């Protein structure tokens, strides 16, 4: 099982320290005013991917399962959301809900098959199943082939608030993002999360204590798929698009990279990682330096040298932060 040396253990953050609370509140405040300086669409994209990476990390970092097929949930939900907006003409919140439900169902289907294997096999099986879904999307007419679903408007939130204004959308996305990260934090630091950690550390032992680990794993898988779907739905709403890019296996690879760079098994890690990767891609898009090469090199460096990721390294380097509990 993959393991960063510095997993944030459940116990470590049982009760958020006062300092932590202050930091979190400060961060949210920054999030509120950030669009004044930074391009809001970029920020929203960043939040979508941060959420996606957090969802992925829920599975890898806390469930110990490396899924190489998370693009299926992200992209699948994006398609459903886009379709719901364009064809069914649902309001955005319902469209996203539809996307999430689709991701949950897909997660259940893929999860049921994949959790039969472990470790690398699990990774390969999820990859292959997600690729199967990719080909499915390529074939069925509702995804509109290589064009993707495009050309729909964002609609009105609850039928009232017009989302075509980027600033309005920004606050809506930020709200969902903050709530979701909190939800993930809550799941991780719940009795259920503790069992998940126990399973990750010693599956046999957990079985011997009477836990049906397959169900717990499946639960984590489905929840993770659901949050990934939420991220995908948001992205579809934001860009008014759903394309094959979102279901392609490169997307699964990217989310792994984000999590790995930021640091597996911490709440902040995937967010930092996503921010970094998205900014990097954004920056490289105009420099002419090949994005794929940069991603590949980063991947290699991370695996060889910085397996803890940025957040993990920081925590490792700053013993003060560790011992303050």
């Amino acid at each position, binding site marked *: 099982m993959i393991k960063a040396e510095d997993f944030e253990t459940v116990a470590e953050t049982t009760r958020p320290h006062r300092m932590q609370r202050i930091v979190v509140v400060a961060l949210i405040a920054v999030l509120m005013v950030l669009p004044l300086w930074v*391009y809001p*669409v*970029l920020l929203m*994209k960043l939040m979508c991917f941060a959420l996606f990476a957090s969802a992925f990390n829920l599975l890898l970092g806390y469930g110990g399962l490396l899924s190489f097929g998370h693009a299926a949930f992200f992209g699948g939900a994006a398609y459903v959301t886009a379709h719901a907006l364009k064809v069914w003409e649902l309001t955005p919140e319902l469209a996203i809900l539809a996307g999430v439900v689709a991701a949950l169902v897909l997660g259940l289907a893929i999860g049921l098959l994949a959790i039969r294997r472990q470790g690398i096999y699990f990774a390969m099986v999820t990859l292959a199943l997600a690729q199967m879904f990719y080909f499915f999307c*390529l074939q069925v007419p509702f995804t509109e*082939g*290589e*064009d*993707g679903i*495009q*050309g729909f408007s964002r609609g009105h939130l609850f039928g009232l608030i017009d989302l075509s204004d980027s600033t309005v959308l920004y606050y809506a996305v930020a709200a969902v993002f903050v709530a979701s990260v909190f939800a993930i934090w809550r799941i991780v630091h719940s009795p259920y999360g503790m069992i998940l950690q126990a399973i990750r550390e010693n599956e046999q032992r957990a079985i011997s204590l009477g836990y049906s680990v397959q169900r717990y794993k499946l639960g984590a898988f489905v929840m993770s798929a659901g949050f990934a779907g939420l991220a995908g739905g948001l992205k579809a709403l934001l*860009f*008014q*698009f759903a*394309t094959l*890019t*979102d279901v392609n296996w490169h997307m699964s690879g990217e989310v792994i990279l984000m999590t790995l760079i930021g640091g597996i098994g911490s709440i902040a890690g995937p967010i930092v990682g996503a921010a970094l990767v998205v900014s990097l891609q*954004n920056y490289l*898009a*105009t420099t*002419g330096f*090949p*994005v*794929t090469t940069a991603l590949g090199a980063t991947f290699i460096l991370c695996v060889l040298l910085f397996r803890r990721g940025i957040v993990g390294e920081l925590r490792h380097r700053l013993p003060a932060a560790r011992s303050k509990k």
Partner: protein
Amino acid sequence: EPYRIGVLTDMSGMNYDLSGKGSEVAARMAVEDFGGTLLGEQIEVIVGDHQNKPDVGSTLARRWIDEQNVVAVVDLPTSSVALAVQEITRQSDTALLISTGGSSELTGASCSPSTAQWTWDTYALANGTGRAMTLEGDKTWFFLTVDYTFGNALEADTTAAVEAAGGTVVGSVTHPRETSDFSSYLLQAQGSGADVIALANASGDTMTALKQAEEFGVTALGQDIAGMLLFLTDVHGVGLDIAKNLTLTTAFYWDMNEETRAWSERFAERMDGKMPTMVHAGVYSAVSNYLKAAEKSGQAKSGTQVMDTMRDMDIDDFFNHNAYLRKDGRVVHDMYLVQVKTPEESKGPWDYYKVLRTIPGDEAFRPIEQSACPLLDR
């Protein structure tokens, strides 16, 4: 702040050779030739790689417009990206100068007042090649179609042209972009017994399909191939051995007259000797005419106004004579029906085409009466 012209193209994917770097160079040439300033401000050319992904392209375009004072977005290979970006330029009223993107839908149902589709479109190809070959005696057609806007539009437009000319379509298969093995599609096409196998795809896919058709002896066994969209670089890529005798429609060939040769040689100098494709020439032409129109209209920010100014102008340069911009965004100019030379006929690299016929603009492009563009108030 300088005015920026954003060349949004494929700098890493399969359209790199036919558009990519060359489009950037062409845009820079146009700006330099124009003098480098517009309405007293510097003009800067910036380039973005959309990786053929609609989402990447639209994010970039959005950011350019919102943050970098980009007044015109240029080139747009891959119609799916072009469609996506057109949504954005429409919302922000930015000029969109499409040279590589070729779906006729861009000036059809999805047309926008700030767009000019400069070089070619699927209708023109269909009408040029499809018609000509049907009249030559290729009556039954089988399509290998790439499965997205462009391919579907090309197939639909060609089907219409073929049927209008008295031919029939006996079947078609669709394939995803960047397919590496066409053998089973070719087998189906061979099984169909059609006179022509039409390749309604582009660049890498077309080249692969051509090569494999040769491998499977398609022409040797008596069927014809129609490369519905072939760029000079594609012919260069597969070589004359394979491409010889293909008939195709193009908006430009470097070796047509003094003017085209002069410009093309300047271009080639900057491109390690590579001759321009029609879309490279189109980018140059589009940018220079845009700059003229913007200068004339007195402002650059409103794409619609610049385009309206352009609609009243005569568009005339080495690329197109007596051309004009229509209300639906279509630039109407002459097209050429050409045939690929045999290796014996060719005098060296890039000497690839013989022009069979000039197709006058009004005959080449979809008549405005048939356009589905909602901007045309009828």
